[in-house]
């Protein structure tokens, strides 16, 4: 469904990402994990065209979308849930959701609204409340719901666990699993490796702007190399035990 080959992103002379290649198949739940500053957000921004990519190719459903403006990418079915939710705090829940569908027809809007309320009943209950009054977890649900309003084929998420209590994080991820079961393809970047690897099918490990490891999450979950990607080398000599 999505194929990224050798994508690089620079901020001025500073390289944020080098040669990132990732593929996501239809119906998959894929995560990219990495420590703070590894380049996770840069990847999503480069992918959506929020920052320009300096090299590489992005193919979505067999179309080269590398050079398309963000708006067109949304139209094709990509949608990003940004880091820190970014709901519109002074609008109510319903209005927030409507904002997510501003490119869509009335019919799609209605259908998607039903879909979102079905998945997140709490949003229906609070549809008249100001988004700024919601709890962190509810805001995250709203941010996902808002993204779903554009009827995406591929949902991109930036750090869904950020700033949320562990139990709420679990809630968010189980909702994502439900979305996957309903056929949505999901790609998220996450600092919280243990939760992402628990729920996703496949994972990539980003270290200093480069991918160093990848595989099925079942294989990655106990891999000491992941700890090293976060904490650095914990040994001096290879043979110490």
């Amino acid at each position: 469904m999505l194929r990224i080959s050798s994508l690089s992103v620079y901020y001025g002379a500073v390289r944020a990402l080098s040669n990132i290649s990732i593929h996501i198949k239809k119906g998959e739940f894929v995560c990219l994990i990495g420590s703070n500053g590894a380049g996770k957000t840069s990847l999503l921004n480069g992918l959506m065209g929020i920052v320009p990519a300096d090299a590489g190719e992005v193919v979505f459903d067999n179309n080269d979308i590398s050079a398309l403006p963000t708006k067109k990418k949304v139209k094709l079915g990509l949608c990003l849930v940004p880091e820190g939710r970014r709901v519109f705090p002074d609008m109510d829940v319903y209005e927030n959701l409507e904002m997510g569908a501003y490119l869509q027809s009335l019919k799609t809007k209605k259908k998607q609204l039903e879909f979102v309320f079905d998945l997140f009943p709490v949003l229906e209950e609070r549809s008249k409340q100001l988004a700024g009054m919601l709890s962190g977890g509810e805001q995250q649900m709203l941010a996902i719901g808002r993204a779903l309003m554009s009827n995406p084929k591929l949902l991109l998420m930036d750090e869904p666990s950020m700033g949320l209590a562990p139990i709420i994080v679990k809630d968010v991820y189980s909702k994502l699993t439900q979305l996957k079961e309903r056929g949505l393809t999901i790609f998220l970047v996450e600092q919280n490796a243990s939760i992402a690897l628990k729920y996703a099918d496949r994972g990539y490990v980003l270290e200093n702007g480069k991918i160093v490891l990848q595989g099925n999450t079942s294989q990655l979950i106990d891999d000491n190399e992941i700890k090293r990607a976060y904490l650095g080398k914990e040994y001096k000599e290879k043979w110490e035990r």
Partner: protein
Amino acid sequence: MILWQKEEQTMPVQDLQQLQLERLQSTVNRAYEKVDFYKKQLKSLNINPEELKTLRDISRFPFTTKQDLRDNYPYGLFAVPLKDIVRIHSSSGTTGKPTVVGYTKRDLETWKNLVARIMVSGGVTKQDIVHIAFTYGLFTGGFGLHYGAEHIGASVIPVSSGNTKRQLLIMQDYRSSVLVCTPSYALHIAEIMCRENISSGDIHLKFALLGSEPWGEKIRGEVERRLGVIATDNYGLSEVIGPGVSGECLAKNGLHINEDHFFPEIINPDTGEVLPEGEKGELVLTTLTKEAMPLIRYRTRDITRLYRDKCPCGSTFIKMEKTSGRTDDMLIINGVNVFPSQVEEVLQEFDHATPHYMIFIKKKGHLDLMEINVEISEHLFFDEMKKQRELLENLTERMYTVLGIKPKLKLVEPRTIDRFEGKAKRVVDERHE
């Protein structure tokens, strides 16, 4: 035909190449970050991992050779600390130190799946009783196939090598249905069967998975006829992972390389230049998923050809021809790799042996026999029988330790072996004559 990991093995080539690119990039990134040897090598050549934008860009990277493994003996090429290593294997080196390879837990998972792929493609199912007559121990052959067969769910008999009569008893009574060994040992078994009046109807073999030495269609025909099996070839080398690099399916027309785990290239062995698909040359492999010891462009020294065809087994993986020779002087004797330089090295340890020797490789029945003629020094008089016998015994014992096989040694008088001008030709291989 049945495939063990159908999704991977039947992947469209375009998807496969994307996967290879992803894995190649992370392998090179990791090797650069975690293995001092690669960091130094690439830095000194002014090559940055970032240059690897397409699969073809790998040709800019330098080769890794067996010498590099030796220079970094024992653990220098490991990308993880020893505490993450759960298995160590080793193979004989050209001279001096052997080469050491390590596996993480995840590498062993990968390995057993790759071997399972090859076994399933060669006809093995979980109903089978797999008779493994490879040597267990430091060689990768025995353990590699062992865990692959267990992973399929077959019943594994780890017979190891030797004592052919006992092997036959086990085959008959335990009803072994799959034989795993070298092609020459398979023929040797057939020979003993003939001598013991056992026919192919008395044993229960259906398939034979043969490997670790080159063999041709003639031997296949004979093994299949005399043991009543379907025989397939498989290929691997311990530096890269062991068995599981490639193997034939029941179409018996080329060995599918497990391309999602190894990136193959064919080079001109003299210039190092990459040759186009279909041309014959030396096989070079880059590991794509090895954690413990990633290798970039490892020169296998095996000569073959790569081609992609529409295989009836459904696998889209590229095929390699049966290997047809080496680009170095390594000898394969009953599946054991032997370098003439190892013989030379042993001779240097003995005062009364000279560095003048000749190696003859012969067939004794269907097994290989290595004979070494060694000139003795003039100081050891030919009438000192006791000293001579001692030398012979000690030399044989030492050769066995270093080579891993027991050669037949013969002491010859001084100045009876040809002196060579220029490149010495010390090996006479009479097996294919």
